[in-house]
């Protein structure tokens, strides 16, 4: 997809390109700048609060043993979870993409499916089966289960695209299969592993519900505790500041580790499809890995939800209550997805049609904010609206803005891919036929990018449906989403009443996860 863009771009003299967009660009750039500025508001807010609070209080609130404890907890969680998730995902990806494992396609889908189950539902399932489960290792176990697909997706996509010529050359030079894997395959997976690890790490920092069930304190749970004790006190904001710094450390690490090596094929021609390795007698043994993984990641939640549904009987299906929550959740998810997609549109267009330093900075802003935990964004928006923009306080508008900020990158990635596939010539033709600039854009590129926009919206909607912390803090009065209802019942240990909500959340997320799976296949060109 990237190469198609480059082609389109290089085939035109740069002057023509600039002239064609001179009239359109300013308004779109302005829109993109506005969106990025808005996205930076939560970040600016945290800095502003820190400055206002004064250094003495800030240092008293940050340099205390509790923060050290949380830092150790959060750090260990990331350090342990990410490597385990990498090993698991690479093994699974290799088995499903590069071997003749029976049912490889089914296993591949089952490796993505855990994403359809909200992380806190995973935790709810495990705590039902092992009530005493708690602490760091419990956190690592459930985190790996909930988040390894975020690594599996890019790694399997990269494995699928690898050029077998390199491996053949290494083998021909006398390397055994293991050394070929370590010295040739693994380095080529570096980008995918880095990207996936970053995603997993950011999710670990942001997750709340998962760790509450298993009694493991991280920065995010501590921020929510402080919020519940003091609403928007300085202690919560300072913890948020430390959490944001942790996010930056992860982002920086990823850039460092990613490196700048060349991964593309040198010379002409296209890569062959790789042959699949024959597992032979090891097949049974190899089936164990995806089998056990599926049992733990899909089996446990489904069995527990089923168990509670049976235990609760018909009594737990309070249809008026469930219907209302379902309706509100769908509405929020759709409206949020729409807003995020509209907000992402100018940025996506610029990054394809008029890339440059400004665009890279703007895009960076959006990704940084998208990597912030929901609780941080919500805390900022609550305080800003209540202090400065009171008419917007507790309105649908504010919560939708929060969703848009949190999930903008999801919309951006999908949109960009499909704008890249819309030929720029159509925009020009529309202009030359007399359409006003924005109108020309509307009747060509924007329409052609509809499939990408739809895919992006689905991903954003998936995120919103399973969002808990920001929704609780920002929701307008009378709102009760599926996740909120689930949380409220499970907080009172009424696991049976919570189960229909868990079931509906999973049932609604499964098709969207399927879409994600299909999309990743398509991106890999197969």
């Amino acid at each position: 997809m990237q190469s198609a863009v480059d082609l389109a771009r290089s085939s035109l003299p740069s002057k023509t390109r600039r002239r064609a967009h001179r009239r359109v660009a300013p308004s779109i750039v302005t829109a993109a700048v506005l969106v990025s500025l808005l996205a930076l508001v939560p970040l600016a807010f945290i800095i502003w609060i820190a400055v206002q609070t004064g250094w003495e209080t800030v240092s008293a609130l940050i340099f205390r043993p509790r923060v050290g404890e949380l830092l150790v907890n959060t750090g260990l969680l990331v350090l342990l979870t990410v490597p385990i998730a990498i090993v698991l995902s690479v093994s699974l990806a290799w088995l499903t993409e590069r071997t003749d494992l029976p049912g490889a396609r089914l296993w591949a889908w089952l490796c993505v499916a855990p994403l359809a189950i909200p992380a806190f539902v995973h935790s709810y399932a495990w705590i039902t089966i092992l009530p005493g489960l708690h602490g760091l290792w419990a956190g690592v176990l459930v985190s790996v289960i909930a988040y390894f697909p975020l690594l599996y997706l890019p790694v399997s996509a990269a494995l699928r695209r690898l050029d077998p010529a390199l491996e053949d050359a290494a083998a021909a030079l006398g390397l055994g299969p293991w050394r070929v894997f370590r010295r040739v395959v693994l380095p080529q997976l570096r980008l995918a592993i880095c990207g996936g690890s970053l995603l997993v790490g950011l999710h670990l920092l942001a997750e709340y519900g998962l760790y509450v069930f298993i009694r493991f304190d991280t920065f995010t749970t501590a921020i929510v505790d402080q919020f519940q004790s003091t609403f928007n006190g300085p202690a919560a904001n300072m913890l948020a500041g430390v959490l944001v710094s942790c996010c930056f450390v992860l982002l920086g690490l990823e850039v460092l580790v990613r490196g700048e090596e060349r991964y593309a094929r040198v010379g002409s021609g296209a890569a062959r499809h790789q042959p699949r390795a024959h597992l032979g007698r090891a097949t049974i043994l190899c089936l164990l890995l995806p089998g056990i993984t599926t049992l733990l990641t899909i089996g446990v939640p489904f069995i527990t939800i089923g168990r509670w549904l049976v235990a609760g009987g018909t009594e737990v299906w309070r249809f008026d209550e469930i219907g209302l929550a379902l309706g509100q959740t769908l509405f929020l998810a759709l409206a949020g997805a729409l807003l995020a997609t509209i907000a992402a549109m100018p940025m996506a267009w610029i990054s394809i049609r008029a890339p440059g330093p400004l665009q890279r900075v703007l895009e960076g802003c959006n990704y940084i904010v998208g990597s912030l935990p929901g609780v941080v964004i919500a805390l900022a928006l609550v305080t800003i609206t209540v202090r400065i923009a009171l008419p917007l306080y507790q309105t649908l508008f504010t919560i939708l803005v929060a969703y848009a900020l949190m999930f903008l990158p999801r919309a951006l990635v999908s949109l960009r891919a499909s704008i890249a596939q819309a030929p720029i010539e159509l925009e020009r033709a529309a202009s030359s036929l007399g359409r006003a600039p924005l109108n020309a854009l509307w009747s060509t590129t924007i329409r052609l990018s509809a499939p990408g926009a739809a895919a992006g919206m689905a991903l954003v909607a998936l995120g919103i449906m399973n969002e808990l912390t920001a929704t609780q803090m920002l929701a307008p009065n009378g709102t009760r989403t599926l996740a909120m209802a689930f949380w409220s019942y499970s907080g009172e240990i009424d696991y049976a009443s919570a189960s229909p909500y868990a079931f509906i959340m999973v049932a609604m997320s499964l098709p969207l996860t399927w879409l994600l799976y299909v999309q990743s296949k398509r991106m890999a060109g197969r």
Partner: protein
Amino acid sequence: MKYALSALAGATALAISLIAGPAAAENDGIIVYNAQHESLAKEWAEGFTKETGIKVTLRNGGDSDFSNQIVAEGAASPADVFLTENSPAMVLVENAGLFAPVDADTLAQVPQDYQASSGKWVGIAARSTVFAYNKTKLSADKLPKSLLDLADPSWKGRWAASPSGADFQAIVSALLQLKGEAATADWLKAMKANFTAYKGNSTVMKAVNAGEIEGGVIYHYYYFGDQAKTGENSKNVELHYFKNQDPGAFVSVSGGGVLASSKHQKEAQAFLKWVAGKGGQEVLKNGQSFEYAVGKGAESNPKLVPLTDLQAPKVDAATLNSKKVTDLMTAAGLL
């Protein structure tokens, strides 16, 4: 240009509906910031609506976040009524001058002991502190005599609490009022070393029942609520009432008040009157909440130890200091 115009019109319509939507909803009935258990508040709201036709919208949360939220919202608060589980949150809002005086006939329904002397808020229910313990792991003669005993090193790793909850923070606020700041700070420090943190009192009881821990400091009604359902999370649990005016015998008053900024004073006062009156108090007696009724002549659920037998310490609910408590708990590393 037609398309651009229609798109713009669509977007504007959406924006207007987004901003105006919630505002329209506010004109319809009253908004209650409810920190009480959702199921109980829902029963109250439904009973009141059935009798008066006034619609009640509940926003559910906790004592502390709501009280601080109301203070932050100030005169612009969308809330009409505030209901809590404990008194300190009420005190915080009262000290910020945000409550309207409660109607005299509402106050007359409740004994003096269960309302603010200022008349700014009124008791709507009460709960007693207990030490819930696992009867297979702990015998009755080994129980702590006082809440203060739990600071002793011999209790290390043997008891639990939910420090982030307003319930436990209310117990600490009573301790603060009864024993002073230095003693409370010391006790909290010892607690940090001794106790295991859980999120939520139900979770504490569940862990006690499962034998993960010997006992926990919670309120009484979690046990009775679970017994009334399946007993699944309380079959091994027994309650120990500290009595003897011990800080651990603290009875916490749940409060209700009407916000001065409310634009529906009449309806809000009517709701509070209903909750503190016969209708609301009967929900406590007959429902599944198992909280104590506090209204004059109102009876609590017969399964409970009578309120008068609890030998609770004399605590002035109107001066419980929630801000100081969270500061002390933050300093002790509990928050």
